[in-house]
């Protein structure tokens, strides 16, 4: 079996497990809605399935557990860790703030004082140091395994796009949770799914670039955690301003611009690095 075939086989097994984990919550939804315990257990297992899938695939295919990119590689790479933290926060801010200003509601941003912003940044930095490890459950699978199998098969652009789509679709159970509970219409649920499909490839490119630069999944783990935590942080800052209760935040197309830009920039950087890399026979 050639390397490509071997890669394709491993990727197929990995994707099969991940797809099963994404479909399973739809079948268990009634049970999950009826019991908090069931919901908690299912959610915890679901969040760790990308990592579990990578471990299972490694075991089943006898690939072994070497080179899982778990070393921190801090030496010489601190700048990438700082970027992982800062760019995620900056990108989230750009998803909301310009749109509010362009809509003529700059007065809603009165909560963005120096003290408040500094507090939010420091709190996120502290949170990032202790709370991001949980995201290893995803990143060990997506960046630590799937991307590495995808890249030799479909190249950089394919990895960013296909990887981003797979990653987005895996989130469907959580995106459709409100619809399945009868609290949202189908079109609203599809908007959430579609929105995620638009902005996830941007993050996929950024995390892939970080992983390749540092040869470690930890910067991607940090960036992912900051991407999640900065949403509530930005919302917290907005809520401190003169914002009406029924304000519609982040609903325009402008919110996708930062992540699309990120996808373009980091894919270009990845392609440049690939060109620079010495060719091996």
């Amino acid at each position, binding site marked *: 079996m050639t390397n490509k075939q071997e890669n394709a086989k491993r990727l197929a097994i990995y994707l099969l497990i991940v797809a099963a984990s994404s479909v399973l919550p739809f079948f268990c939804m009634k049970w999950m809605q009826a019991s*908090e315990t069931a919901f*908690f*257990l299912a959610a915890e297992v679901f969040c760790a399935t990308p990592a579990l899938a990578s471990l299972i695939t490694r075991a089943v295919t006898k690939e072994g557990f070497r080179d899982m990119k778990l070393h921190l590689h801090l030496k010489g790479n601190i700048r990438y860790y700082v970027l992982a933290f800062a760019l995620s926060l900056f990108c989230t801010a750009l998803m909301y703030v310009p749109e509010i200003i362009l809509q003529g509601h700059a007065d809603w941003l009165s909560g963005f004082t120096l*003290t408040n912003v500094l507090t939010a940044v*420091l*709190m996120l*930095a*502290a949170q990032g140091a*202790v709370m991001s490890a949980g995201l290893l459950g995803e990143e060990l699978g997506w960046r630590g395994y799937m991307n590495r199998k995808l890249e030799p098969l479909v190249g950089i652009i394919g990895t960013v796009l296909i990887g981003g789509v797979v990653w987005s679709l895996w989130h469907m159970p959580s995106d459709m949770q409100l619809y399945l509970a009868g609290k949202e219409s189908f079109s609203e649920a599809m908007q959430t799914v579609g929105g995620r499909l638009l902005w996830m490839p941007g993050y996929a490119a950024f995390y892939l670039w970080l992983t390749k630069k540092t040869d470690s999944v930890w910067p991607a783990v940090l960036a992912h955690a900051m991407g999640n935590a900065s949403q509530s942080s930005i919302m917290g800052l907005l809520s401190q301003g003169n914002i009406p209760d029924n304000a519609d935040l982040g609903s325009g197309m402008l919110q996708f611009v930062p992540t699309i830009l990120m996808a373009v920039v980091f894919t270009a950087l990845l392609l440049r690095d690939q060109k620079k890399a010495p060719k091996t026979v």
Partner: protein
Amino acid sequence: MTGLVYKEWKQNRWYILSMILCGFLPLIAVLLFRSESPEHLDSLRIVGMLAGFLAAGALQIMVLRGDDRKLWGYWITAAPDGYRGFLRVKYEMIYGMILLFLLSMQMTDGLYCAVAADLGMTDAADISGIAVPLVFVQTLLRAVDIPFYYRFGSKTGSIIKMIGMVVLAIVISVALMFLMDSWDSVTALAKKLFTGYSSSLLLAGMLAAIPAVYVLSYRITCRLYLKGVEQYDK
């Protein structure tokens, strides 16, 4: 580096895995003592959490045991990764243990809250709000413990650290006694610092500084290690 990670795992895997058990202590406390004080389950969980915090702290120190030997110190200094690589793995492992403890405690707590909600106990509160600051305290304590251990060895290090703590407590007490006369202005300043946004800024700054202190502790230990090795086995 992988070799050092392997060595630490083989030597300390039970200590590392025991962090998961320490995270279960709030739940264990509730299961063991729920019949004695069924009205105070939240307090029991907090006591269990504190017990877990203390047990985890003691176990984190145990992974340093046996490192204060002259022969080992010379050998690891001559190894390819050097004593810096060895210390880095130790620091990373202890930090990993702290995070594992937090993760385990949060998951157990989440499970408890979910089960409590299913049983109709709507007043079961999330104790993660206390666990996270405690984890920062734990990180700070380890940042203080480790340099003392490697500079002076296990026994002398803990005695010197204790003396240092006592001296610090005396200095703070004396300072407070001197400040008694102007107590009102001190409390006013403290209130000003710990109210509203300034308190969150101060708190956020303090919390964000702790991981930096941990890194600084590693650098200090690297500087002191060889001096410490000369004193081991005496």
